């Protein structure tokens, strides 16, 4: 039995939406990071589904590509967070408010 591609695409869309809402709503920077990861994986799922539907390996290559990207991006992001937490106690996005205007 095969599952129709539209289910995978729907799941991808749902994951992407959860991630996007979380990124916009949550205050904790680490949770915001997790939401970014969730959205990346939703894009991965869509790529794999299209690769299967279109019989094209390009989509599967793209997934490896996105995984590497996610690792690189999170390394930089964690570096920034560590740099901030060394100087202040707050762990939320609302605590970074020195720059405005």
């Amino acid at each position, binding site marked *: 039995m095969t599952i129709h591609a539209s289910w995978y695409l729907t799941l991808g869309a749902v994951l992407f939406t959860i991630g996007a809402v979380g990124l916009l709503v949550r205050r904790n920077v680490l949770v915001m990071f997790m939401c970014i990861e969730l959205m990346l994986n939703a894009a991965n799922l869509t790529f794999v589904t299209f690769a299967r539907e279109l019989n094209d390996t*390009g989509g599967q290559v793209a997934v490896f590509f996105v995984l590497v990207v996610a690792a690189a991006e999170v390394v930089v992001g964690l570096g920034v967070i560590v740099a901030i937490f060394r100087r202040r106690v707050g762990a939320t996005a609302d605590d970074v408010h*020195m720059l405005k205007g």
Partner: protein
Amino acid sequence: MKENPAALAPELALVVAAVVGAVASGWLPRRRQWAVRLLAAGACVGGLVATALAMLGPPERVFDGSYAIDPATNAARVVVLGAALVVIGLSAEPLRAHPHESEFYVLLLLASAGAIALVGADDLLTVFAAYLLASVPSYGLVGLLRDRTGSEASLKYYLLGALFGIVMLAGATVLVGLGATSSYPGLREALDSAPRAAVAFGAVCVTAGLLFKIGGVPAQFWVPDAVDGASVPAAAFVTTIPKIGGLGAAFRFFTEALPAGRVDWALLVAVTAACTMTLGNFAAFAQTRVKRLLAYSTIGQVGYLLMAVAVAGRNGLAQQALWYYLAAYTVTNLAAFAVVAELPAARTLSDYRGLAHHRPLLAGSLAVSLLGLVGTPPTALFVGKLEIFTAVIHGGYTWLAVLAILNTVASLYYYLRWLVPAFLHAPSPHPAVLSSGGTWSAATAYAAATATVILGVGAAAVLPLGAGHLLP
């Protein structure tokens, strides 16, 4: 299909120099990190030579059609490499013997390579890879000095960049799913029969990612905070080089990847341009800190640049107008930042009081660069604005040109708020505020201001370099 690495010589020069510099920085003593600066400058000069050679050859698509080497890519190489050289020049003193001096140049080279690759990319996945190569080092550059404002600026820049990067990737998956290919010529053919709403969704998402790089509405939030919080060299970098890549990529994406008449992207870009220039110029009115004022001024300038993208493909004028304006904007904006780097203690507009009494030449450079940003003849941006307005009116967007002229007049106000105290007021009661940052930043300011005028006077010779058809 040509797979010759030599075709990518300028990009490879930057990347190889970055890797060598990163390894070498582990062994170099802190006082001898200037070697990495020399290496970075050498890579930029080498890249410029390779670009000059590439300009003589015919345009070609390399690596399975995923990368185009045509007049637009070569123009991007010249502008980005020139801009990187100026940034290296103005960062010599602020970063001298800093613990992270070598890393700054390494990240600068990588992000510049990413900006060039954004323009050359002829494939959605290559564009995304280039987007990340241009973005990830920039987050590091903004927060590199590890001060309080720097890390806050970096976090804001990073979070917004990650969000828009994923939105762009989502748009790319939709377009790839619809077209069954990621290469621009293939997409152009396949999307002609795809559902209109899905194509529009994918195109808007990809545009959102590119707008983040460009710093246009609605992805402009990072610009003032990243520029204000970062060191002056990093601020000079993020307001110029990523924008070159983003605008070049948007121009190619709209003209090459989307079938004509399927979605009305021109109107979308025109409205974005109108919002961007108006928001940038009006938000700049109330600023008192020089870096923040320059940040909003770049948002305004980007609005004018987006006008050229809006009429892309309608006539031959848009492309040469875009590249000429980009070159002119880059050198003028960097001249203003070089003046700011030369006066490290002056942070607000009132600190510049009486600058003309203390440093007449530097005040002259500031005047040339700020009046240049308004578009006063004979500076380069005057010709640039003339070119863009002509292209926009020919393209049928007269209302946009009228709005841009009104914005230009309005922008004079906040540039004069900076200039008038510098020239008319008596010598500063605190001359220490105007103490010099060093000879390199001053020399860069003079050189960039001179280049602004030369580029304006010699426009007739430079303009055709940005013209020439993109590869189909």
